[in-house]
């Protein structure tokens, strides 16, 4: 999918997710879709659970543990939110 096809639909989600991530972004890094949650934001296992919970509550979705294992970047997070919204 190219940006032009999905741009308007995805943009708000990215911004919402960036907003949620600000709390974990202690070094004030610039957030991009390819930002690595581990390497760049240094989210540990407890913080990861908080983040997942916030996302679940915000979008009223469940993110099962098997999907957590594949969440490396901001983009992965957004893709998962969309997928789980579709599944709900």
């Amino acid at each position, binding site marked *: 999918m190219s940006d032009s096809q999905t741009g308007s639909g995805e943009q708000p989600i990215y911004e919402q997710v960036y907003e949620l991530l600000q709390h974990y972004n202690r070094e004030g890094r610039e957030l991009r879709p390819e930002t690595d949650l581990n390497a760049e934001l240094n989210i540990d*296992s407890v913080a*990861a659970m908080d983040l*997942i919970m916030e996302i679940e509550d915000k979008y009223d979705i469940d993110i099962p543990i*098997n999907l957590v294992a594949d*969440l490396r970047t901001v983009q992965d997070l957004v893709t998962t939110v969309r997928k789980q919204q579709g599944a709900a």
Partner: protein
Amino acid sequence: MQLTTTSNDNLPLRVGVFDTLAEGLDYAARGATGCNFFSERGRPAHSLTYREIRERALDLGLRFSASGLERGARVALIAETRPEFLITFFACQYAGLIPVPLPLSVNLGGREAYVARLAAMMQRGHASVAVTSEEMLPMLEEAARMAGIERVGSYSDFAALPYQGGEIRPLNKDEPAYIQFSSGSTSLPRGVMVTQHSIMANARGIGQHGLQLRAGDRATSWLPLYHDMGLVGFCLTPAMAQVSVDYLATTTFARRPLLWLQTLSDQGGTIAFAPTFGYELCLRRAAKVEPGQYDLSRWRVAGIGGEMIRASVLQAFADRFADCGFDGKAFLPSYGLAESTLAISFSALGEGVKVDEVDQEAAARRDLALPASAKRAKTFVRCGRPMPEHRIEIRDARGKPLSDRHIGRVFVSGPSLMEGYFRDPEATATAMPEEGWLDTGDLGYLAEGELVITGRSKDLIIVGGRNIWPQDLEWAVEKIEHVRAGDVAAFAVPDQDDSEQVVLVVECRLSDPAARAALRREISAVVQRSAGVSCEVVLTRPNALTFTSSGKLSRAAAKADYLAGRISDLDGTLEEGVYAMAVGAE
């Protein structure tokens, strides 16, 4: 949904007095108690009486047998907190197969590390088949391929195996019960061989002596079922004592810890355990809890185990939830380890946390735990006396038993001891250097017959109640570009609140500061992915790490050098705060 009753009307309570797990479940199935599973939002999701668990386990057991699995074959299963885990575990008991619970622990982006861990365990356990839920199946399949296991499927795949009648031949009292992987590093996991005899002895000790179970008791647990405290304490012991259990998944607790208290309150739970960390997590989220929001007055045993017990956190928990009816006297410090099935000692019921203040100097320099009340005292928690039929000895480096208040290596004996590590005679010989005695690797002393733990086997890191083996972190970091084997040492230093801060010391040959910054980020990312913890990264000059004469890395030396300031960071960014706190806590 109808939850299982708290006690049985017409079935006398029998605690751990069976020959086998199968026989114990047969008895529990005559009553109406059982297991209840709550959703991620704390709502009842599944409820099964022990009778239903038994029926489904018998059915699956017959299908297992008909599928040509040899007696004693290992069945690997991911220990998710769901009915299918219990059913499959007991199906193995009925079919003469040995279940091997595998961990369910995934970090953000940690797929690769997790799959490798599963594969190593299945390989060490020589598993013949592997089973899990639909959701976890892709990862288990990947791990099974790595481990060379052909038969892997979901619970429903196995439940659909052809049923050809046949006979049930449960594991008998002289056979194994299951293999528990909770020891050894990820790369070299060790499977504790628990026998029918040892699990029953432990369930009896826990139920009759430690908790003194009685009619009206109800257990509540979020503990992982691949961990001995979860599996033995809150699955097998309740089943062997006809006690109903209310389960929350571990991930549910991690995300919403207060659901634990909510469930205890709603269902009238009387027994729940956690490492200190579990109580701490509740405290951290307690800001919005109203006075009396929960009714914790029926919670008569609030057990603590699994990591060094921190009295200050427990006190804070008791203070915070006093207005919900929580009584600090309910705290029950305990000690145990998987090599002894689970439990070794319990403090006395109804006494709460008893601390021992000892002279820090005498403890550090002379291995003596002398009572002290001065400011220089160090506080330890008493973990009580050994269960009946079990013994504890404190020994010096030469194996000679020590008298009261001398700090040494904790040795234990009794009917709960494992038979050994599965197909690992070398590791077994190290852990059990003498017939009938286990070297726990922990340090401690006895005071008036009560065990006090002062430290753990020296290298193990425990963060948030989880064991982390330093070599796993070191190996993961050594795979990074610019890092060579032997360049890395991982250890933990005390944090300000007595929990642990992981430190990675890495010898670094990069002269470009930008390259060093990138390496630093990469190292913390790798540590996050493999163990889910933050760490402090110290990049230091080559040859800063000490090796023993046999060529083994000395983590103790690296830690001492770090604490003494002899290992310094090339960029001078050593966090002064952590350093100062660590030194202060020494």
